[in-house]
Structure formats: C-alpha cells, structure tokens
C-alpha cells in the first residue's frame, strides 16, 4: 500500500513537469516516424496523425487536460516559427528551378486559390451549413495563423478555423498522394505545389519527406497561397454574401 502511494506521488510530481509532455510527444513521434519509414513512406501511415492519436489517447486515458499537456508541448510548438523561416533555404537552393517555372507557378496560384475558396463555399451550401460556419471554413487551405486572421476579418470563428485548418492539412497529407496517382500527375513540381496550396504546412512536411523538389514547391505554394488567399477571400465574399 505504501509503495503504491509513493508511486502515485511520483506520478503527480512528474505529470506536472513540462519535461514529461515533451518526452511523450517526442516518443510518440518516434513511433509514428518509425512506422512511416517501415511502411516505405506510405502516406496513410502519416507520422503526424499517428503521433497525434498516440498522445491524445494517452491524455484522454489519464484524464489530463490539454492546457497541462501544452505546458510542455509548447516548447515543440515554438519551433514552428523558426522552421517556417528556415524554409527560405531550400527555396533559395532551388531558385533556378523556380525561376524556370515562374509562369506555371503564377497561373496555378491565380486558378487554384479561387477554386479552393469556391469549392468550400459551394460544398458548404450543398450541405446546408450556416453562413458563419461557411465563412469559418473558407480560409482553411492556408497555414493556421493566416487562416485565423482571415476568419476573424470576415466574421468566422477563428478557433474553429484553426481546428478545421489542421484537419485539412492532415487529410491532404495522408490522402493526397492517392488521388494525384489516380489522376496520373507525374511532375514533382506540380505535385508539391498542389500539396502546399491545398494543405499548407502539414502537406509541405509530407512533400518534403518524399522529394526535395516537391518539398520546395510545396513550401513556395504555402507562402504564396497564404498571401493570395487573404486577398481572394475578401474579393470573393463581396460577390457571394
């Protein structure tokens, strides 16, 4: 009895430490990454999705609040900013390829972004969602901080936009490869670009892990679509609402 009591005390102490949750996140990611590599980079075995499932099940099982978990995990979350800045390097290294494809890049942004916004709008109408929820969903293809900013600007619910944006990223990263294969898209530049445009950072991470050229075009598309979406959403909703 006394021994159990001591173990419980140690647990109470440890779970209050940020270190515990950082370690758990890293461990879960190592499992996810191991399975991803073991599956020969099968997109369905998405390392982000696996680690998220492992960590959330543990949190739910132990009845730990997200705030407590994030107290530790925020140190990992923090690196998202520097990692975004660091994407400048692969883009710089592939600058000649980007300059060569500058016309397709610009065209695809001008065609792809309105498509992304409009399909969300019309699907929302089709499923009978309220205007507020449709507005909340409209910027979902861009990186979360931009999406939340746009959502606030147009009268959506920013926190809900963040959730929808992340789900969009995971869906694109894990299922995108299959549909691109079905439609026989071969160009690595086009595939990567589509990943970055449709599913921002998580799609970019998937493209990066598979092919450097695809990764660079994804990073480029992610940045460009963030800027273009902010502009296009404002124009499009003037006509639709």
């Amino acid at each position, binding site marked *: 009895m006394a021994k159990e009591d001591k173990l419980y005390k140690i647990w109470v102490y440890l779970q209050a430490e940020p270190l515990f949750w950082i370690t758990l996140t890293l461990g879960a990611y190592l499992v996810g990454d191991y399975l991803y590599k073991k599956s020969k980079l099968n997109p369905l075995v998405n390392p982000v999705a696996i680690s998220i499932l492992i960590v959330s099940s543990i949190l739910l099982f132990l009845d730990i609040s997200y705030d407590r978990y994030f107290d530790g995990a925020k140190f990992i979350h923090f690196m998202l*900013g520097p990692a975004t800045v660091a994407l*400048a390097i692969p883009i710089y290294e592939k600058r000649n390829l980007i300059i060569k494809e500058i016309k397709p890049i610009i065209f695809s942004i001008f065609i792809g972004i309105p498509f992304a916004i409009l399909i969300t709008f019309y699907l929302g109408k089709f499923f009978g969602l309220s205007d507020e929820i449709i507005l909340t*969903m409209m910027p979902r293809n861009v990186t979360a901080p931009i999406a939340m900013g746009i959502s606030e600007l147009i009268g959506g619910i920013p926190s809900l936009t963040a959730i929808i944006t992340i789900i969009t990223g995971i869906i694109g990263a894990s299922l995108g490869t299959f549909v691109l294969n079905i439609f026989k*898209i071969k160009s690595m530049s086009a595939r990567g670009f589509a990943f970055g445009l449709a599913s921002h950072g998580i799609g970019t991470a998937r493209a990066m892990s598979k092919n450097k050229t695809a990764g660079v075009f994804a990073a480029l598309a992610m940045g460009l679509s*963030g*800027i273009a979406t*902010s502009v296009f959403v404002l124009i499009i909703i003037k006509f639709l609402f």
Partner: protein
Amino acid sequence: MLRSLFIIFFYQLLGEAIQKIFEINIPGPVIGLILLLLSFIFFSKKLTQSKKIIKEISVTSNQIINYLSLLFVPIGVGVVMHINYLGDNLFKIFSIIIIGTLATLVFTAFVMEKIINLEKKNGKRR
C-alpha cells in the same frame, strides 16, 4: 550551428516586428522567410563570406525541416481534444474538408502540370 540559429531567430523576430508595426495580415515567420530569402539573393553576390554563412544555415535548417512533421503534433493534439467544438456539424465539415481538399489538390496539380508541359513544348519550338 549557434550562428545559424541566431540568424533564423533574428529573421523571425524581424518578421514579427514588421507584422506588428504595419499590421499586415501575414504571420511574422512567413515575413521572416521572405526577408531571409531576399537577403540570400542580395548578399550571395556581394560577399564571399556570405557563401559560408549560407552553407552553415543550410545545414541547420535542413535539420529543423527534417522534423517539420513533429512540430505539428502539439496543435494536432489540441484538435483532437477540442473536436467536440464542431458539434452537430462534425460529419458535414469532415465531408467538405475531404472532398474540397482532394479536389483542390488534383485540380491545382493538373492545371500546373498542363502549363509546365505547354511551356516545354513552346520552348522546344523556339
């Protein structure tokens, strides 16, 4: 390593500051990315020293980018823990995300590949 980390952090800080000052709708890190890219293009021709620094940053940044997926785990766990926020619309929202995202992916890749191939043809003719 330390020098390149400093440069990356510094550019993010610069990006965040510019975002706050000019109240731009683009996140600070993305502005930092653009500024760093511009600096590379500008300095790479000016100084021989900068080539060495770019190489150094390249090693560090490749290491960070390798673990890009990991960095989305904390926020992803937040999504699972707050999934009930989607309420009654959960199924509809998921359907829209799946159809919308995959359609956008295919459409964009398709259009871009077509234009790339068109460009190639035109290039050959010239």
